[in-house]
């Protein structure tokens, strides 16, 4: 049961990682990155690491995404051309 859950979550994370790299709309890439952080949090809870899960939830899916989004807004960047 645990093995299946871990396998399924890793497959989802691989798909989300591919969407991070290949999406051309940069704000969409950042949102996929925050979803990756959320999936990482779930995996850390399964791996019996609650401190690391809390840290990844607050920093990886929180402050990191916000800093990316606001710096995209500061430079008025929309698309990744090419």
């Amino acid at each position: 049961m645990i093995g299946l859950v871990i396998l399924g979550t890793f497959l989802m994370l691989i798909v989300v990682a591919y969407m991070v790299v290949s999406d051309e709309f940069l704000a969409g890439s950042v949102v996929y990155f925050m979803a990756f952080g959320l999936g990482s949090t779930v995996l850390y809870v399964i791996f019996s690491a609650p401190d690391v899960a809390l840290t990844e939830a607050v920093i990886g899916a929180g402050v990191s995404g916000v800093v990316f989004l606001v710096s995209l807004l500061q430079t008025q960047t929309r698309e990744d051309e090419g």
Partner: protein
Amino acid sequence: MNLKKTIRLKTLLSTLMVSFLTITLLGILAQVSGEHATLGNRLLSLNHNLTQSANAVTSVVTYFRGLDTLGEVTILFLSIFGVGIGINRSEHLHTILHYDNALLKMGARVLFPVIILFGFYIIFHGHLSPGGGFQGGVVIASAFLLMFLAEGDAYALDHKILTLVEAFSGVGFVLLGLLGVLLGGLFLSNPLPLGTLGQLFSGGVLPIIYLFVGLKVAAEITVLIEYFIRTHDARDA
């Protein structure tokens, strides 16, 4: 998604390199087996007597490996120092991400002390439950982010207080280490009374170290978010 893509040489080479690394690692993995006594098992057996803290990760971060945490706090300080070189305080700063909504303003004013209380709860209970200084400090900084989003230009941060909090937290960490030298003989030893496992006032110097780390991380992440949200906008001229 564009399905018709030309495969470039660089992409192909990096894919080959990564698959080679994966196969190598699988080969290494197939030979490592068995259970062996690690440093972590030894520290777990020492944890109950040396530090009466219920969270073994906290006692590893602040006591058994306290010097690494001091180094990490230094790296954090240096990065925020590097970001802070580009801050201009003399001109009028414009908040670039701001929602002019009355419901958000009222809600943020109610929620701001609650989020800060929750952040301090996470910091203070670092040795009893999952949590600690880093997590609680970033939660406190997110409360300030909420105020930036709700009130915009009208919200003024007192930079003198932020600088004082950050500086004295860093100094306090080193002073606790020197206190350990005075009373215990080693840097960052645990000279204060230990108490019993499960109480709030237990663990000796552990909660105090995490309090200093939490305050320092909160002040630094707040300054970081304020730099990104409020830098002088090129459109304003």
